[in-house]
Structure formats: C-alpha cells, structure tokens
C-alpha cells in the first residue's frame, strides 16, 4: 500500500484560494488513486472544506491545476463536476425536506422517458440504490423532512451514489451518525472501494481515518503539512502535525469531590411526548454527561429543560424552588443556557455579524437601552476570551469555520452568566484544536460553579469530560455510571443488554 499508484484519478497541484482577502488555501498538492481512500485531516479552518468544494466544482481555485482522470479540468460548476464523475456528500445536509427521498436522490438528473420525468423509474432506481447499501427499511417515497438525522444522511449518500461517481468526496460523513450506523458506512465505503471508486475522506474522527484510509494528508492553515501512508503513522503523530500537541493532553482534569456544590436542577418524574419518568439531579460544579443513541431522548431532555418543548408531567426545582420552564425565555431568565446540536439551523444567524450573533441572547433578555455599551464591551471581551480566530467582529458568521461559529455561540450564552449550561454535541463537526479549547472552556465553567449537562455521541469525549454519565434509552434513563466508566458500559446501557433488561 506504500507504493504510489501509477495513474491517479485526481491530481491537484498548487491549489490556492482566497475569500475576502483571506488566504484559505495555499499551494496544496494532493492525489487520489482509483479504489483508494485518501483521508484529509486538519484543524479548524485549515481549508479542508474549501479544498473539497474546489474538487467538486463548488468554487473555482485562484491558482493551481486540477487533473481528473488524466486530463486537466476546470469545473465550471457542480453540474460540470458531476458529469465528469465527482460526487460529494456535504458536511451539512443538502436536502429538500418538502420533497421525497427519490426526488432528492435524483434532483438535477431525474430519469426521463419521452422528455418527461419517469416517477416510477425514479422510485425503482432509488429503491435499488437503498437496497444496495442495506437500507431496505427506508421508503423511497417518504418525505425527507419526516426522516431522522441518520436516515437523511443515508439519503445524502444515496444521492451521491446515484451519480455513478468515480471520485466520491465525503466531508465529515459520520458526524451525524450513531455508532451502529458508522459500521454500515464502513461497509459501504469498502464496497465503493472494490468498485474502483476513489474516495476523499474528510473527518475529525481519527479512528475512522485509521480504519478506512490508505493515505492521509494533513492540512494546516491552508497549507499541506504532509501526506503519509496510514500504516506508517500513529494518532499521536497526526495530532502533532495538526496542532503540535500530544493526544494525552486532550481532556482537562475532572472536578474534585469537594468542588461539587449543591443540587442546582432537580427533575422528578418528568416527561413529555418523547420522555417518560426521568429523574435527574444536576449539581453545581459538575459536568454531567448524557449518553445514548440518536433519538433516545437526549436532545429531547435538553430541549425540555430549556423550555423548547416543555415537560408536561413531573416537577422541576431550580435551587430548591419549583419552576415551570414554559419557554426558552423563562429558561434563560432562570439562568439556563442551551448550545444546540444543529448549529447551522438553530445556533447561528448566518447573515448577521459575529458580534450580532454573540449579542443575540443578551439583547433578547435585557431591556433595550440600559447598559447597551457595557454589554457590547463585555461580549467583545468574551469573543476574545473564547479565541474566535480568522475573522473580525463585523464579518458575517456564515463565513467562519464550524469551530469558530461554536465559540461565538458560547460567547453569546456566557454573556448571560448562566448557572446551568446545556451542551448538545458541543464539538460535532469541529476539529481537534478547537475541540480541546471548547473542552477546556466547559470545564472552566464548571469549576467556576456552573452546572453543566453535556450530551455527546463521541464516546471518548463523553468519558473524558464527564464527572457522571447518565445513559438514556427510549425516552427514559437507562442507568447512571460514575467517572471512569468504560465505553462498553455506556454502549451496553444505551442499546439495552441483558443486565438492565433483567431489572
């Protein structure tokens, strides 16, 4: 596997790109052979997504050459790239919720007969495609908006496959998937490999990169640091290339027993449409991890506490006083902050500036005039404190990388001095460097006396960060684990093995 393949499918030489005067890519070289999985890793804003968009025709490079299947190419747009045989699965879903699975899969290249869209053929082909990736339960005529996150991801993959791509780009394909779904994706990737399809695989999860790829290219600040054979490297070495830091310094220290304060939030037998009989205590100074599969009620719990879809049964006390959290506004007034899972949809206002986004919550809760200037100063300080990089405060937030966007969201909530912080997948789609910055920040907040509830699908993160772990399943608490639990114990509770069933 160490021999460079003789005829690369894709060859990039000296690719450069700037946005608004900021150099995002600079002289990047890369090649992919047929049947090869070439992983691309790198920190926040290292230029991975931009590079992928250049290969797939989304952006035109400012400099350098793209060679595909032995010919120099300049893709005029995504359609052009698709025709040539480049498919892409984007990090954020690119689906129409109002349309069916089949309509989404074949959007832009609907099968036609006598000039008309052949709906039956479209459904049939979609079904066959879904069968071929082992998703027989997913109906081809379901409305995509009705599907869960993981199923939407499957539609995305089917959509790329429907293009008969020779090169497939996967930009964080597992970010939204639960563990057993990741296994399915592995199988799919290997099947694609056998068909001689080249894969460019972008991921923050080093485990996947090592499981799947044959070569790894590391990007940092828009430049290529190195390209290594996967067999010849280690996770530690990769992380060093990416951030110049060892893997072991990853998670901050846990709270000492004496740091744990009184019970801040007490849930007694609470429930709603998605939750039942949940009992939970959240203490000041601790990070309570919430584990479980997708749809097990983890997010529903956070959303209920924050008043998005409130509890309909049970009692909630906050600092020993009964409260009713009817709306996000009452929750915010009570000192609760919620960093959502869906950053693009619920976390940020894409077209507003970094500063406006950071001020959003303060402006909503406080009276319009009083202390406006002081608030702005404080938010600017917070933005500096969370180290938002690569952008001025006046830049539209959508141009920032995921990690920097998340830091802005954090600054927004910190401006309210919350006593309870709810994090839902705080580091999803965020690179290693920004991840540990956010981990440090979360721990620092707990140390300063906040009560933190953190939902995570990333098991090492959940185990590394939490002082206690509550695992959810089917809308109720499946069990609680102390710090130092193993991945196996969490998974066993999440999927419901014999031990818990016997209770």
């Amino acid at each position, binding site marked *: 596997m160490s021999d460079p393949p003789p005829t690369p499918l894709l060859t990039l030489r000296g690719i450069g790109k700037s946005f608004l005067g900021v150099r995002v890519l600079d002289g990047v070289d890369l090649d992919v052979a047929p049947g090869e999985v070439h992983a691309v890793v790198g920190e926040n804003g290292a230029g991975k997504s931009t590079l992928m968009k250049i290969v797939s025709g989304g952006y035109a490079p400012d400099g350098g050459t793209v060679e595909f299947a032995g010919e120099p190419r300049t893709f005029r747009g*995504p359609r052009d790239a698709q025709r040539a045989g480049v498919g892409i699965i984007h990090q954020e879903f690119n689906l129409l919720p109002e*349309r069916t699975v089949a309509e989404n899969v074949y959007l832009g290249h609907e099968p036609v007969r006598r000039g008309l869209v052949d709906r039956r053929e479209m459904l049939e082909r979609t079904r066959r495609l879904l069968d071929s990736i082992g998703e027989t339960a997913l*109906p081809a*005529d379901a409305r995509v908006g009705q599907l869960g996150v993981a199923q939407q991801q499957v539609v995305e993959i089917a959509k790329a496959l429907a293009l008969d791509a020779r090169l497939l780009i996967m930009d964080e394909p597992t970010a939204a998937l639960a563990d057993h779904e990741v296994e399915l994706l592995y199988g799919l990737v290997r099947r694609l490999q056998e068909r001689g399809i080249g894969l460019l695989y972008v991921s923050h999860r080093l485990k996947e990169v090592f499981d799947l790829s044959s070569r790894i290219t590391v990007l940092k600040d828009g430049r290529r640091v190195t390209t290594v054979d996967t067999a010849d490297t280690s996770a530690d070495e990769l992380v060093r290339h990416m951030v110049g830091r060892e893997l072991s310094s990853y998670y901050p220290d846990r709270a000492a027993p004496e740091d744990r304060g009184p019970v801040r939030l007490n849930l007694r037998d609470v429930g709603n449409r998605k939750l039942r009989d949940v009992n939970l205590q959240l203490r000041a100074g601790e990070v309570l991890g919430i584990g479980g599969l997708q749809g097990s009620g983890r997010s529903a719990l956070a959303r209920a506490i924050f008043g998005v879809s409130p509890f309909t049964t049970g009692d909630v006390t906050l600092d020993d006083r009964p409260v009713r959290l009817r709306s996000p506004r009452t929750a915010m007034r009570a000192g609760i902050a919620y960093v959502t899972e869906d950053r693009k949809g619920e976390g940020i206002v894409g077209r507003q500036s970094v500063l406006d986004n950071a001020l959003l919550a303060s402006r909503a809760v406080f009276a319009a005039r009083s202390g406006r200037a002081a608030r702005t100063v404080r938010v600017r300080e917070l933005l500096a404190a969370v180290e938002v990089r690569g952008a001025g405060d006046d830049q539209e937030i959508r141009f920032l990388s995921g990690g920097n966007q998340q830091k802005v969201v954090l600054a927004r909530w910190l401006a309210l001095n919350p006593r309870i912080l709810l994090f839902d997948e705080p580091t999803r789609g965020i690179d290693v460097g920004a991840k540990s910055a956010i981990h440090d920040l979360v721990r620092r907040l707990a140390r300063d006396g906040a009560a933190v509830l953190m939902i995570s699908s990333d098991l090492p993160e959940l185990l590394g960060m939490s002082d206690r772990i509550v695992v959810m399943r089917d809308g109720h608490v499946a069990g609680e684990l102390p710090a130092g639990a193993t991945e196996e114990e969490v998974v066993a509770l999440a999927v419901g093995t014999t031990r818990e069933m016997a209770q």
Partner: protein
Amino acid sequence: MSALSLLPARRPVPGVFVALTLTLAIGWLVVLLDGGQLFNQSTTVSLLHVAAGLGLVAVGQTLVILGGSLDLSVAYVISLSTLVAAETMNGSDGALLPAVGLALAVSAGIGLLNGLLVTKLRVNAFIATLGVGLLLKGYLDNGYDGPAGTTSPTLVQSLGYQRIGPVPVSFLLLVAVTAAAWFALSKTRFGHHLVAVGGDPEVARLSGVRNDRILVTAHVLCSMCAGLAGIYLASRLGSGAPRVGTEGLYDLESIAAVVIGGTALAGGRGGVIGTVGGVLLLASIDAIFNQLEVDAFFKQVIRGAIIIAAVAVYARRAMRKAAA
C-alpha cells in the same frame, strides 16, 4: 423515529377545497334565506368568468412563488396585453392569431426582463417586478386615457361569451392551463427543479440545477399567463383597457389566491390545484356578496380576514409538522 411511522409523501387534499365547500354551502343557505338563489345560471356563469380571469394570472403566479420569487408586475402586463391584442386586431378577424401571438410575445418579453433582473442582477423579486410594473404603468398612463382598439368579433364571441352549459369557454381555458402547469410541475425536470430552487437554492445549485435558467423560465411563463388573462379580458370588454389590470387588483389577488391555495410564500411547497381552489374561493365570496348586495368595502374587509386566516392555518400546520 422508526421506519414504520413513515408515511409515503402523498399530498392530502388541499384544505382550501374544504373551505370552498363550506363557503358555498353557507353562502347558498344565506342567499336562500335572503330570498335569492346562489346557483342560478347567471350567477354561476359570472362566478366562473371571474375565476377564469383571476385563475389564469394566479396559476402563473404560483410558478414564480414556488420558485421562491414573486411577480408584482402582472396587473400592468394584463393591461398592456389587452391593448396590444385589441389594437393589433383592430376589429378584424384576420389579425386574430397574429394579435394573440404578439400579446403573448410582449408578455413573455416582460417576463424575461423580470427573470433576468431577479437572477442576473440579483435584484430582490419584490423590488424588481414592482419596478418593471411601474415602468409599464408610466407607459400606459402616458399613452392612453381610456379604452383603445377593438377586439376581433370572433374572439369576443368565442373566448369572451361562448359557453357549454353554464361553463364558459374561458373557464375551460383555465382548466387547460392549470392542467398544463400541473403536468409541468410534476412530470418535467423543469417542474422538479423549480420546486427545488424555491425550497433551497443552494441545494438545487449543488445538485447541478441551473437555478437562473429555471427561474427566468418561470418568470416568462408567469408573464405569459398574465398576457393570456389580458387577451381574455380584451375578449370580454371588446377593446383594450389600460387600467383593467390594476382596477381588478390582479397583482395582490393572484398572490392571495396562491397563498390561500396552500403554496408557501417562501417557495418550495405547494401547487396549482390549490391555487385554483383559492381562486374559486375568492370568486365564490364575490358571487355570494353580490347576491346579498353587500357593501363593497365590507367585502374587502372579509377578504382580508380570509387571507389572514388561511395563512394562519397553514402556519399552524407547518408548526405541527415540525414538531412531529
């Protein structure tokens, strides 16, 4: 979320038809108590005539709204089209076809302008089409004080007044245009791409849809529908009328019909069948109030209330869907 709970995306009957049935039933009863008859020959015919005119415009409007755009210039396009048609015909049957062709071509040209402004110059659709409308208004106000030209007698007799039983030929034209639009939306790539562009332009673009071309086409078709409505009005009036479009409030009424028909104003969801339901609802209310001889201003109040109620109902539904 289990796979079992997934229903196929079969569209339910748009709620507007339920509202239409209720309105007609209540209207029939009230008119009856008032000593009148809602469904006699003359009221039915006039109801369908009203629906035909508004319907042609609204079907076109549905296309642009589905694509996430909007056309406020339709009222002026209608007026212009009546004039182009009537002046070209100049009372003779010989010039009938060239006149119809010219009126449609002029309309298509305006649609092209609208489309290019919206896509190539990236002018907000509201502003772009309003601007083009004002441009046309200037031309019409400057050149015409009153009716001009004469519609060909054949067109007046056929499209204007011919009917089969109580159904005017013009209403059959609306049915045909609606069927064509429905067919285009569900059976052609253009239709699929149009809904995609309205649903999420970025998704459409990244899927290889040529957004600009699709949206320009939708604008051309919308304007041509307005042009067709103009030709129909010319056949009713016997001449070109420079204010008929604005006096009939075709711009706002067509958008109202689209919205009442269940098409999302932001685009990406809806269809022409619902729009026709919306048109029939507005026309029925008109007919009922005419029978009851209700004050014209009060009529507007009721229409306003209905439009707001319709949008509120759809918004609630969308919320429930999001929560599910």
